[in-house]
Structure formats: structure tokens, C-alpha cells
């Protein structure tokens, strides 16, 4: 069954500031941050939309949106508008008032005119902040079979990690009977000793139910947030169901990348999963910018040692060693340089005789010869931005 035929409209909330990902978010919103030195974070949810045949997609953007808009125009501007298919960015327009979006629910409320224009039967609302694959057909079928007003994707995680998410409980019929955003003492899954169910920010609403809730919420003094306001208010009044992500087609991999550490770990997890060919597969491609670059070149008399690493197109590596690292497009690495456990993004150039460890380089960084990073924590702290032991070199950094 093709979802595109089912009167479904999709909104992706793509205005996340990603403050804790600074300096990667100094010049761009969180969904526009690079991932695995090849993709942007937004590429994952958009790829799942296209692979699932969701082809009427609005991305709601807000702060620092230029980079994301450029990426969408260059990489995701391929659907035929004349067949009513589109991936369209919608900047915060202050259409109703002089206020920006004050919360996730307000972002949709301020764009109710799009729902009125399309009159869909169901509305997907997705976060543009997470790394995962998902076949939205599975969630849609459960939603229809159970006649739900809201079906939200649910993930099981350890209790110690749950307090920063919306935590919920479900009965045997998948009805969600409690939901608390960022609780101090997260409720356990019945029968489990250390597992909680959390909200993944993946929602499918019956349109009428969504609009009723948004209209009611708009007239109240709330945070206008799905997690804090809309979902708790719907429980008991509407049919709110959970969808088990763990038991879905791609339920083995979902990563929140809210901090530098979790971002770094997610990149490294992705690298290790690449070897297993379970995240990036030909049956579920992840699309990104297809730049017309030549293949990469590995040169020099001593050769290049490359282990458990990826190198994107157009890179030039000479007599160097690269281990446990993700190397982006158009990167140059000079003679006798060592790169370990690091992420080097697009168009960076690293000189000769350098040592780079446990580092994230944003795009367009030029490193002179003989630089050492990640070798002496004290020196790193004096010279660079360091978060949780990881050195982050921002875009266009001047050495």
C-alpha cells in the first residue's frame, strides 16, 4: 500500500536550535548538522519519508535556517510539484502575530492554513533531530486498524537514561494511559525492572483530533508543546496508542544526538554498524547531496593505512594512517599524519605530520603542519573547544 495515496500530510519539525551541539550549531540549526561526515541529520527522516512514500512534506524551520534551506534546495528538490508531491521548507513567517514558534504544537498551529489547504485525513508530525530509519507504513497500518486519534512511536530504554524524555506507560492493548514529560522518577514498563518507554517524537494524528487539540491549546496559557501539553491532555479523552519501534522493521537503531558526546557516540555507532550493513542498505537508501566529485585518491610511496573508516568522494590522502574515523567529501590529509577516532567533515585540509585523536572537525577547517589535537588534554583545553573530552573544531577555524 502506498501512503502517498492516503491523504496524508507530513510536517517535520526542523527548527531545533541544538544549543548543546555548539559549535556545530553556531551557523546552522540542528537538523542541518553533518552526520557521519557525509549526511545531514535531516537526511534520515526525509529518506524514511520518501522510502515510505510520504511525498507531501513540509519542513518547519526557524532559527539559523539558511544552511538547511540550501541543503534542501540542492539535495531534496526532486519531487514533481505538478503531481502534488513536494518537500517544502516553511520558514517561521509570523503570519498570525509577531511571535516566533513558542513550542512544537504552536509551530503546527501557526501553519493550520496548510492543513486547511490540503484537508488530509491524517497528519504525520516528525522530529528532524534524530538518527533512525523507519517504515512509516507500519505505524500507519496500526493507526488505522486501531482507529486511533494519535499513534506515537515508542522506544524502550534504561531508566537512568529516560528522565530527559517524555516517559509513558501502555496497557496490553497499546493504549497509552500515562505520559509525563521529563519526569524525575520515570515509570517502568510493567513487568520490567529497569526499562522505560519513551516518546520518540514521531506522531500520526487523525486530523480532526489534532486540530481540536491545537485550537484548544492555543487558547490556553501553556508551553504549546506536544510533549508537555497536547499528549497529556489527550490521554483519557482520545484514543492514544503507542507503536513499538523495537518490533518494527528498522527497530534496532535510533539515536538522539542532543549533546556533543551523544553526537560523537552516534557517529561511531553508525561507523560500526556500517560494517554490518544494517543501517545503510540498498533497500532503504539514505539520500544526501550528490555532489559531482571524483573518486577519492590514496597516494604517496608509503601508502595509506585505512582501518574501520569511511572516506567520501573527492578526498586526497597521502602517506597517512586513518583509524576508526569518518572522513568527509573533499578532505585532504598530508604525509605522516595520524587520524584516530575522529570525524572530519567536508572540505577540510589537514597538513603533514599531524596527530588528530577524539576530535570533530566541522567543514572548511584548514590545519597547518605539525598540529597535535587530542594528545594533551590540558593543551587542548587552552586552545580549543572541548566538550566531554572531545575536541570540536568549528567551521572556518583559524589556527
Amino acid at each position, binding site marked *: 500500500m502506498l501512503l502517498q495515496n492516503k491523504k496524508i500530510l507530513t510536517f517535520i519539525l526542523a527548527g531545533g536550535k541544538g544549543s548543546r551541539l555548539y559549535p556545530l550549531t553556531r551557523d546552522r540549526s540542528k537538523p542541518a548538522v553533518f552526520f557521519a561526515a557525509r549526511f545531514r541529520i535531516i537526511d534520515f527522516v526525509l529518506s524514511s519519508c520518501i522510502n515510505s512514500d510520504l511525498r507531501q512534506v513540509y519542513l518547519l524551520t526557524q532559527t539559523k535556517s539558511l544552511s538547511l534551506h540550501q541543503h534542501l534546495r540542492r539535495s531534496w528538490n526532486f519531487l514533481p510539484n505538478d503531481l502534488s508531491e513536494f518537500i517544502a521548507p516553511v520558514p517561521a513567517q509570523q503570519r*498570525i*502575530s509577531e*511571535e516566533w514558534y513558542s513550542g512544537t504544537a504552536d509551530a503546527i498551529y501557526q501553519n*493550520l*492554513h496548510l*492543513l*486547511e489547504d490540503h484537508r488530509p485525513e491524517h497528519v504525520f508530525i516528525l522530529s528532524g533531530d534524530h538518527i533512525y530509519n523507519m517504515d512509516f507504513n507500519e505505524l500507519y497500518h496500526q493507526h488505522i486498524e486501531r482507529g486511533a486519534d494519535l499513534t506515537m512511536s515508542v522506544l524502550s530504554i534504561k531508566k537512568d537514561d529516560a528522565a530527559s524524555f517524555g516517559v509513558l506507560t501502555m496497557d496490553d492493548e497499546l493504549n497509552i494511559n500515562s505520559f509525563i514529560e521529563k519526569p524525575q522518577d520515570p515509570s517502568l514498563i510493567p513487568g520490567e525492572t529497569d526499562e522505560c518507554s519513551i516518546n520518540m517524537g514521531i506522531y500520526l494524528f487523525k*486530523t480532526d483530533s489534532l*486540530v*481540536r487539540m491545537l*485550537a*484548544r491549546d*492555543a*487558547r*490556553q*496559557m501553556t508551553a504549546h508543546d506536544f510533549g508537555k501539553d497536547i499528549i497529556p491532555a489527550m490521554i483519557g479523552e482520545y484514543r492514544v496508542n503507542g507503536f513499538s519501534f523495537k518490533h518494527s522493521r528498522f527497530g534496532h537503531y535510533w539515536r538522539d544526538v542532543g549533546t556533543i558526546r551523544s553526537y560523537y557516540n552516534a557517529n561511531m555507532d553508525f561507523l560500526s554498524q556500517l560494517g554490518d550493513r544494517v543501517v545503510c542498505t540498498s533497500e532503504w537508501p539514505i539520500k544526501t547531496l550528490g555532489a559531482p566529485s571524483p573518486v577519492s585518491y590514496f597516494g604517496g610511496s608509503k601508502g595509506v593505512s585505512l582501518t574501520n573508516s569511511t572516506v567520501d568522494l573527492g578526498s586526497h590522502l597521502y602517506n597517512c594512517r586513518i583509524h576508526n574515523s569518518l572522513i568527509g567529501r573533499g578532505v585532504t590529509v598530508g604525509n605522516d599524519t595520524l587520524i584516530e577516532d575522529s570525524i572530519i567533515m567536508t572540505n577540510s585540509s589537514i597538513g603533514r605530520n599531524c596527530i588528530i585523536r577524539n576530535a570533530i572537525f566541522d567543514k572548511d577547517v584548514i590545519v597547518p603542519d605539525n598540529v597535535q589535537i587530542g594528545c594533551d588534554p590540558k593543551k587542548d583545553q587552552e586552545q580549543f573547544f572541548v566538550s566531554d573530552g572531545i575536541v570540536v573544531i568549528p567551521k572556518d577555524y583559524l589556527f
Partner: protein
Amino acid sequence: MTDDKKILVIDDDVHMRELLKLEFSDLGYKVTTAENAFKGLQCLKDEIADLVILDIKMPGMNGIEALEKIVSIKRELPVIIHSAYSHFRENYLTWSAVAYVIKSGNLEELIQTVNSHLS
């Protein structure tokens, strides 16, 4: 008691404005009227209202656009849509009104709706 409750009527039909002013004043409400949405929004900035009765089809800014703006500046202010047309009831942009009353010669439904929100 209705003496201290203020109603703002936004309607381009002068006869309807006068009728509602007369009727609700008789019931003890203080009634202000505005002949279009721009003047209605200005009234809300200048003085306090406890409830708005809002027409939809008006020249210039219509009632649907006005409703969005009212909700954005005075979230908890109840707005009752009072229109001769029923089909706007299906428009999602009207759903943030607390009620939708079809205009008719009999004001009983409108009076009951106003009373229920101001009691």
C-alpha cells in the same frame, strides 16, 4: 450578574450591530461595536472585553483571519463566531472559536451561548 461584563461585536452589517447592542445591553452587558476587523482588533488593544461576537464575511480582513489574530494576542478571550454561513464551520481555522452560531432572526441561541461563557 452581567453588569461588569463587556462584549465586543465585530460585524460589517450595521443593523446586526445595532440589534446585538440593543439586545445584549438590555440583558445588562456593556457592548462595544466595530464595523470591521481592523477596528475590532484596535478596540481589543484599547479596552478590555470579556467576549467577542465575530462575523466572518466582512470586507478587508475577514473573521477567520481576525480570529487567528485575536487568539494570538488574547489567548483566553472567548470568541463566538456569528455567521450567516454554515460551511465555515468545517474550516479548521475557525475551530479556535468557543462556539459557532448561525445568524437567524431568533437570537436565543446566541444569547444562551454568550450567557454560558460569561456566567
